[in-house]
């Protein structure tokens, strides 16, 4: 009887940067080895999920140095009401995934006018 071996791929948290620019929140994630076809981005309620499959050619041989961890990337973030769900755009280049999340107009800082009497 053959032993059924299902090896699950390791899931790694990708390194990320979050910053504010031009009234949008930018999320930059480092996912080397991930191209457009391997990427999946989903918004489900308040959860924002990014999944990236790392595709590197398998090589046979002895590892003389082994620092790169083999695994797929995944990150789940929670969004609050200030993010406009319809204004989310994502792009991939050189293994970096950049997501621009638009902030709802009503949430942007507004100056309050002072009227002198």
């Amino acid at each position, binding site marked *: 009887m053959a032993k059924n071996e299902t090896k699950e791929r390791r899931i790694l948290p990708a390194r990320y940067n979050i910053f504010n620019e031009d009234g949008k929140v930018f999320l930059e994630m480092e996912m080397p080895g991930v191209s457009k076809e391997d990427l999946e981005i989903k918004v489900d309620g308040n959860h924002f999920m990014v999944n990236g499959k790392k595709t590197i050619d398998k090589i046979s041989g002895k590892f003389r140095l082994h*620092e790169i961890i083999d695994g797929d990337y995944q990150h789940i973030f929670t969004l609050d009401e200030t993010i406009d769900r319809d204004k989310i755009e994502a792009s991939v280049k050189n293994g970096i995934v950049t997501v621009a999340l638009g902030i709802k107009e009503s949430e942007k800082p507004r100056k309050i006018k002072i009227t002198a009497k």
Partner: protein
Amino acid sequence: MAIVKWKNRDMYDPWEGFRSLQDEINELFDIDRTPSPSGLFDRNLSPAVDVVEGDQNFIIRCELPGLDQSDLDLSVVSNVLTIKGEKKDRNKEKQTVYFKKECWSGSFQRTISLPNSADTEKISAVLKDGILSIELPKKEEAKPKQISVKIS
């Protein structure tokens, strides 16, 4: 309460340094946390490298997300391979407000000594999706050969 004083984090806090150290050590004991890729217990400012020796060749892979060919400098000097470059921070000139910054940026260098069996004349490199793959075939004499045994 309609108005509550906002905790101004820009004001000088003499305990700031200790607080972040304590937070980091506390995080180590949080069972549900995936290990953070940055912080005290992390390799700083250098990309991860794999070196694999096959029967016919050597393959070296380096994780360099965000780098273009122009940011990278690859050189070989008597069997020592040097990968040098600069990982640019796209917001360097602007005063960006970061909520979280885990990605390192700046110049880096990795040197790898290759054994004599590597033929450095026939080196080739490909940069794709942030992974640099370098291949060097082995010199003919170093490749494993089958020796036929004659029975007399």
